[in-house]
C-alpha cells in the first residue's frame, strides 16, 4: 500500500484510512448488517422465549414455562418425531442416491454432461415449486395413481399423500428428488479426484471394479460424505416451504415439522413467547449438528497443518 503510493510521485499521498475506505466499506458494512440481523434477532428471540409475550412482545420473566409448554404439546412432539424420521431417511437416502448416480456417471459414459445437468437441475427449482408439483404427482386423484389406473391397473394404490402414517415419506421423496443431484455433484468430484495411478496400481494388483470401489475409492470419500450429510441435515432441520407446499403439515398434523410449528405458534396463534421457544429449540438442534462438524473440521485442518 505505502509502496504503491511511493512509486506515484505526482499525486499527494492520501491518508491511510481514505485509501483503505473501499476495503472497510466492503468488509465492515455487510458484516455489521448481518451481525445485527443474525446476532441481535437471535438474542432477541431467545429473550422473547423467556417472556409471557403473546400478540406483542412484553417484558416479564416466565422462566422455562414456554419451553415446557412447547415440549409438552402434541404438535411439537409429532414435529420432533417427524424431524428425526425425515432427517435420517432423507439424509441417508439422498446421499445414497447421489452416490449411486455419481458412480454410474463415473463410468465415462457418453452424454455425461447432459445427464449431470439433468440430475442437478432440481436444485435450481424453488422448494415451493417442488412441493406443488409433487403434491400433484402424489395426489391419488390426479397423479401417479390416476395414471396407472388409466393404464388399466385399477387395483393399484399409491395414496401416501393422504395416508397419516405414510405422508411423511412423500416429503422424503420430494426432498430426495430435489437434492440428490447436489450430493451427486459432490461425490462425483470426489470420485474424479482419486489419483488415476492408484486405480492403475489396483488393476495390476488384480482388483476388479467392485473391489476397487469398495476398498479404495469409497473409503477416500468419507470426508465428502460428512460434508454432504451435514449440509443435508441443516436443510432437513430448517425445512419449511417444501412441507408447506406439499402437505401443509397434513393430513391433520401428521407431517408437522418444527419450522411449521414455529410459524403456527408465532403467526397464526399469536403466541410469540412459545413460538420463540420453539425457534430456540430448533436452533439448538441445528447447533447439535453443526458444532461437532465445526470441531471435526478444525481437527482435520490442524492435522493437515501438522502433516
Amino acid at each position: 500500500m505505502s509502496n504503491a503510493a511511493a512509486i506515484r510521485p505526482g499525486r499527494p499521498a492520501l491518508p491511510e484510512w481514505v485509501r483503505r475506505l473501499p476495503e472497510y466499506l466492503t468488509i465492515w458494512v455487510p458484516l455489521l448488517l448481518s451481525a445485527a440481523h443474525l446476532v441481535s434477532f437471535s438474542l432477541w428471540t431467545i429473550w422473547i422465549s423467556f417472556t409471557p409475550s403473546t400478540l406483542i412482545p412484553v417484558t416479564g420473566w416466565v422462566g422455562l414455562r414456554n419451553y415446557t409448554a412447547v415440549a409438552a404439546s402434541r404438535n411439537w412432539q409429532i414435529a420432533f418425531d417427524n424431524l428425526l424420521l425425515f432427517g435420517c431417511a432423507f439424509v441417508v437416502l439422498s446421499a445414497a442416491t447421489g452416490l449411486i448416480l455419481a458412480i454410474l456417471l463415473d463410468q465415462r459414459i457418453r452424454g455425461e454432461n447432459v445427464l449431470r445437468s439433468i440430475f442437478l437441475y432440481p436444485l435450481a427449482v424453488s422448494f415451493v415449486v417442488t412441493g406443488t408439483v409433487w403434491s400433484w404427482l402424489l395426489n391419488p386423484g390426479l397423479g401417479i395413481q390416476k395414471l396407472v389406473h388409466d393404464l388399466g391397473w385399477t387395483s393399484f394404490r399409491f395414496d401416501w399423500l393422504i395416508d397419516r402414517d405414510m405422508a411423511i415419506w412423500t416429503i422424503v421423496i420430494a426432498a430426495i428428488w430435489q437434492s440428490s443431484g447436489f450430493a451427486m455433484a459432490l461425490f462425483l468430484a470426489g470420485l474424479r479426484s482419486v489419483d488415476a495411478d492408484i486405480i492403475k496400481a489396483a488393476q495390476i494388483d488384480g482388483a476388479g471394479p467392485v473391489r476397487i470401489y469398495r476398498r479404495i475409492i469409497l473409503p477416500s470419500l468419507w470426508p465428502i460424505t460428512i460434508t454432504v450429510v451435514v449440509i443435508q441435515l441443516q436443510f432437513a432441520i430448517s425445512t419449511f416451504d417444501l412441507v408447506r407446499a406439499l402437505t401443509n403439515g397434513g393430513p391433520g398434523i401428521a407431517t408437522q415439522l418444527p419450522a411449521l410449528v414455529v410459524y403456527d405458534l408465532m403467526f397464526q396463534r399469536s403466541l410469540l413467547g412459545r413460538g420463540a421457544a420453539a425457534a430456540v429449540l430448533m436452533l439448538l438442534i441445528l447447533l447439535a449438528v453443526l458444532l461437532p462438524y465445526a470441531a471435526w473440521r478444525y481437527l482435520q485442518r490442524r492435522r493437515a497443518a501438522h502433516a
Partner: protein
Amino acid sequence: MAALSIRALSKRYANLEVLKDIALDIESGEFTVLVGPSGCGKSTLLNIVAGLDRPSAGTIEIGGRVVNDVAPKDRDIAMVFQSYALYPSMTVRQNITFGMECRHVPKTAQDAAVANVAKLLQIEPLLGRKPSQLSGGQRQRVAMGRALVRDPLLFLFDEPLSNLDAKLRVEMRMEIKRLHQRIGATIVYVTHDQIEAMTMATRIAVMHQGRVQQFADPDTVYRYPANLFVARFMGSPPMNTMPARLESDKDGLVAVIGAGRPDEVRLRLRDYDGAAPFVGRDVVVGIRPECIAEGSRAFSGEAPVLVEAPVDMVEPTGAETMVSLRLGGEPAMARISPDIRPAPGASASFALDTRRICLFDPETERLIA
C-alpha cells in the same frame, strides 16, 4: 530367455503417432532404462507393457507369452509409480497385501511374504502406518515393497524417483541398484534423468519422438552415441557438437573446425577409417567436455593436441571447473581441474583428447565413426 519382447509396436492417438515401430528384446535379469525427454513416449510404452493402454499395432511378449490381450493382473508384472500410488485408506501392511488378497493367497503366506519384504526394505516399523504418515522416501520404499512382494517376471518403474529431493534420490538410486543386484529381477525403468539411466542400467533405450534412438549398454551409449540426439541428450553437460570439415593428408584424416579462419582447429584423427567416404565434406564433430582439459593435462600418457582458445565463461563447481570456450569460433564446454580458473575474455591453452572424438553425418545426424 527374453523376459520382454516388443515387436513392431506403434501407438496412435487420433492423428498423433506417439510410438513408432518400437522393437526391444530384454533379457531376463536385465535392468533396462527407457530414457528420453518428456513427451518422447516412454511412459506410454511402459503403460502398454503393463496392459494399462493398448498398442495400435505390434506384439508384446512377457516371458515368451504374447500378452496383447491379457489383463494387467495376469501379465505377471508389478509396477512402481511416480506418485507412489499407495492406497490412502489402507495401512502399509494392507497396501502390500492387497494384491495377494485379490489373488486369494492364504493369510499365513501373506504374513510371511510381508515379513520378508519389510525386512528387505527395512520398513518393519512402518507396517501399521497410513501412507499419509510417511515421508516421501518411506512411501517410495512401501511402493517398492508392494511390487517386490508379488515376485513377478517383470518390474516396471515409472519415474519412481522424480518426486524425491536430490539427496534422497541419489540414496534411493543406489538402493534400487543394490536391490537389482541382490534379487536379480528383470526391470524396465522409465526416467527423463540421463544420470539415473547411466548409473543404474545394464542397457539403456534412448527414446525421442516415439522412436528408440539407441538401445545399448551405458558405456556404448556414452562412448558411441548412435546419432546427434543421443550425443546431445546423454551426459551432463552433453557432448559438444561442432560443424567441421573432414580433410586428408599424407598422415591420415584431419577434422577442421572453423576451416579457413585464423583460429581454425585441426584435429588429427587416428583409426577413423569408417569416415573415409566423408573426406572433403562437412561433418559434425562431437567431443565430450571431459576430453577438453587444461593445457598441462596428459591423456593416458599420450601427447594431446594443444589449442589456444578464447574463454567465454568459467563455472567452478568444486569438483571441477566448467569452462565455456570457442574452438574455431564454435562454442564448446570443457571440464578442467578445479584449481585452474582461466580468466574470462582471455585466451587459454587447452588439451584435447582426440581419440574419443565422434563424427556425425550432418544430414542424417547418424554416427559415422
